[in-house]
């Protein structure tokens, strides 16, 4: 090493810091022994253990030691570097060291938390510390590359989370692209009637926000559009958006709906997506009356013109001089550049057909909760009347909780909103039909603000609560269904005939969540929800810098939580872009020219085209702006002339030796 050899044996002077993490580490690992052991390692001039290294006094220890012991390198043995590398690099920098002269050792996630044998865990920690001490001696000071940030933000998904995030950013003066797959924004919330526990009208609080999105000068709203490609990096993402043809010119359509009236179909034949198939729509339609934008859309699959080319095109006639209808419209690709991306792609409801004994899709009296939301909604298919498919008003209704949630056979997790929306629907159904309402539940989970109070209110209204998981559902007489359940509070099996069954279905990741995850280069949790960087400390960030999460794409959430998270995601994006520039990690590869034989092995390996061959010198050259630091070329270079900052061969060899060479 050319730099910093002020320690014993001509090595850099190294400080080792071992964190107790309360008892998280110290409970399984003998931290004092490790501290004593560390002082025997070559180059180590000071070693300490401390209860919480990441705390202010813990960091201060490092800052002071750098000065007092003239430290040139720092090793911190604590938690995962993905959690606190930044913290300790910062501490080292405050002490006057280059932040990259720090190495972290993961003795919590990879050691104390996963092992029980104290001796083995301590030995492992010792090996890892030894490796780090050997490695850190080779660390060179590195500079982070600063790149300017594009101040525009992309929000993917136009449900309540996407809408709120977009408005927050737009109000802060940032330009936002809001991309929504459906022909309208609004998402699931637009389908609800009232929201728990306040029984606010969903439309009354949502539709003004939808309108504000459309009207906002800082928001470019692209509905019926999908992101197809994402390139670049934090601060400088290039995104391709596919704008599907709606066969109606958005700039010309005023939403008068005369075309819908005039359509050659007198009655709609296609199941209406917005009403979950409880009503029918025509091939040219407005998703729902308050849709934003107020632009109709033509369903290619259902339209006669597209099927036969022989339609009378009464819709075109009705549109008249405005001429908004355009059957020749083609898909368009738009490329935008943004500094940050917020994903708010939402959820799908659990498909109740997956639990056959509840008879959804078999018995017409069985509904999902979302269908009932449409029934109780005054703008829904029945004008707010809760009536069965045969037109009868139910006199008794069963609401079955935890359908597809908290179940080994489907989803093990709690879907978080079903208890409360079940209570809400119980209230609304009772109010509208005076029916007897039975809730079949495993537990009632009502932990939010005013939730328990709402539960009490619904109980007082006379709704029946039966604790037990419904085992079977079968036809009784008079078109009724019999709900068979073991009442676990009474300890006996009950059979209750009802007219209508509502399945409180859970929430699931969208079926294409994996594709979306790949597109944006983020991770999913085991269940398929998008994974946050840290469940407590970075709940809206992802492992990919500049990409944030909002709403139920991260996990089941109710409206207040979705909105709160959307605000947080917007704030994180704002903090990022308002900094004006972002520092990129300097883990890039570089060519040691004198060693390069010009074999060109590396060139086709680079997925970013960062390596070029310089004809004059017959050497390879790496563009560090394009290089993302994977190190594939480094591993492949036959002459060893490509190196990767912080991951040089020498450093990794030191680590290998370090973990294997017992003292």
């Amino acid at each position, binding site marked *: 090493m050319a730099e910093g050899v002020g320690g014993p044996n001509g090595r850099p002077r190294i400080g080792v810091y071992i964190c107790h993490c309360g008892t998280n580490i110290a409970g399984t690992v003998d931290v004092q022994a490790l501290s004593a052991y560390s002082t025997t390692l070559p180059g180590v001039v000071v070693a300490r253990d401390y209860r919480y290294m990441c705390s202010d006094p813990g960091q201060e220890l490092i800052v002071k030691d750098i000065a007092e012991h003239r430290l040139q390198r720092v090793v911190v043995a604590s938690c995962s570097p993905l959690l606190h590398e930044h913290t300790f690099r910062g501490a080292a920098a405050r002490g006057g060291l280059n932040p990259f002269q720090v190495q972290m050792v993961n003795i919590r996630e990879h050691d104390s938390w996963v092992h029980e044998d104290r001796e083995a865990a301590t030995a492992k920690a010792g090996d890892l510390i030894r490796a780090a001490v050997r490695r850190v001696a080779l660390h060179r000071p590195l500079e982070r590359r600063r790149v300017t940030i594009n101040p525009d933000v992309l929000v993917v998904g136009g449900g309540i989370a996407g809408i709120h995030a977009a408005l927050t950013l737009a109000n802060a003066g940032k330009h936002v692209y809001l991309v929504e797959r459906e022909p309208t924004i609004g998402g699931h919330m637009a389908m609800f009637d009232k929201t728990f526990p306040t029984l606010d009208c969903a439309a009354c609080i949502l539709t003004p926000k939808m309108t504000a999105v459309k009207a906002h000068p800082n928001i470019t709203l692209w509905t019926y559009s999908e992101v197809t490609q994402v390139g670049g990096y934090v601060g400088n993402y290039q995104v391709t958006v596919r704008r599907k043809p709606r066969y109606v010119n958005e700039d010309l359509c005023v939403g008068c709906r005369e075309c819908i009236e005039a359509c050659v179909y007198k009655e709609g034949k296609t199941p209406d997506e917005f009403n979950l198939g409880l009503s029918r729509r025509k091939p040219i339609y407005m998703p729902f009356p308050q849709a934003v934008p107020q632009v109709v859309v033509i369903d290619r699959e259902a339209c006669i013109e597209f099927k036969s080319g022989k339609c009378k095109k009464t819709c075109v006639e009705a549109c008249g001089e405005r001429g908004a209808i355009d059957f020749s419209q083609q898909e368009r690709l738009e490329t935008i550049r943004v500094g940050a991306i917020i994903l708010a792609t939402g959820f799908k409801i659990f498909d109740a057909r997956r639990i056959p004994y509840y008879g959804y899709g078999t018995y017409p009296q069985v509904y999902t909760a979302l269908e009932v939301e449409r029934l109780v909604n005054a703008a829904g298919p029945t004008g707010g009347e809760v009536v069965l498919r045969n037109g009868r008003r139910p006199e008794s209704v069963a609401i079955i909780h935890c359908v597809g949630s908290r179940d080994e056979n489907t989803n093990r997790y709690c879907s978080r909103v079903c208890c409360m929306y079940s209570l809400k629907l119980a209230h609304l159904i009772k109010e509208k039909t005076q029916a007897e309402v039975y809730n079949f539940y495993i537990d009632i989970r009502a932990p939010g603000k005013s939730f328990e109070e709402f539960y009490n209110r619904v109980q007082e209204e006379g709704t029946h609560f039966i604790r037990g998981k419904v085992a079977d559902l079968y036809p009784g007489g008079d078109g009724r269904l019999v709900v068979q359940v073991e009442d676990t509070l009474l300890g006996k099996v009950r059979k209750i005939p009802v007219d209508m069954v509502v399945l409180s279905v859970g929430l699931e990741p969208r079926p294409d969540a994996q594709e979306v995850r790949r597109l944006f280069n983020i991770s999913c949790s085991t269940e398929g929800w998008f994974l946050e960087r840290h469940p407590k400390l970075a709940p809206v960030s992802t492992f990919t810098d500049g990409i944030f999460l909002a709403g139920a794409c991260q996990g089941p959430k109710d409206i207040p939580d979705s909105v709160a998270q959307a605000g947080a995601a917007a704030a994180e994006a704002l903090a990022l872009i308002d900094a004006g520039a972002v520092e990129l990690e300097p883990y890039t590869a570089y060519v040691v020219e004198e060693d390069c034989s010009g074999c060109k092995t590396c060139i086709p390996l680079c997925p970013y085209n960062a390596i070029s061959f310089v004809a004059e010198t017959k050497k390879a050259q790496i563009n560090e702006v394009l290089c993302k630091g994977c*190190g594939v070329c480094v591993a492949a270079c036959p002459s*060893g002339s490509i190196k990767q900052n912080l991951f040089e061969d020498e450093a990794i060899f030191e680590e*290998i030796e370090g973990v294997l060479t017992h003292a």
Partner: protein
Amino acid sequence: MPEATHTTEGGARAAPEGFEPRIVAFFCNWCTYIAADLAGTSRMKYAPNVRVIRTMCSGRVDPQFVLEAFARGADGVLIGGCHPGDCHYQEGNYKTLRRYTLLRQVLATLGIEPQRFRLEWISASEAERVRAVVNEMVEQVRALGPLRLEVPQEVPVPRQREEVAA
């Protein structure tokens, strides 16, 4: 690489009493390392025989790292990367797979059993897979016994590429 000679006499190697396999693992920063972190936060328990070395991509794992680990006394080497199609660097793991396939053959010619060298695709959410793979590998290597490559400890193993090429 130095002359790596076996000390075995050709018969079955009986694992010595109290043998604990030493396994070096190279985990990519974006998938398997996160999965191992998740195993930690989930407090899953697995064998303490693995020492993880983090690389940004499994594609950074130079075959020499694997050879070096075996030469330095590892009884097994594990590489963990993102699933095909999921690489943070688009296709680094495909390059890992190619190298792995070739390197396995090289190791076989050196007399290193295939169970001692393993490549696994483990995504960030698959903490359980980390636990299962580590435990399984430790058991397999334990059954095989120590690698027993004879490396003269007093002579430093050459690490410079030039020396290796020489």
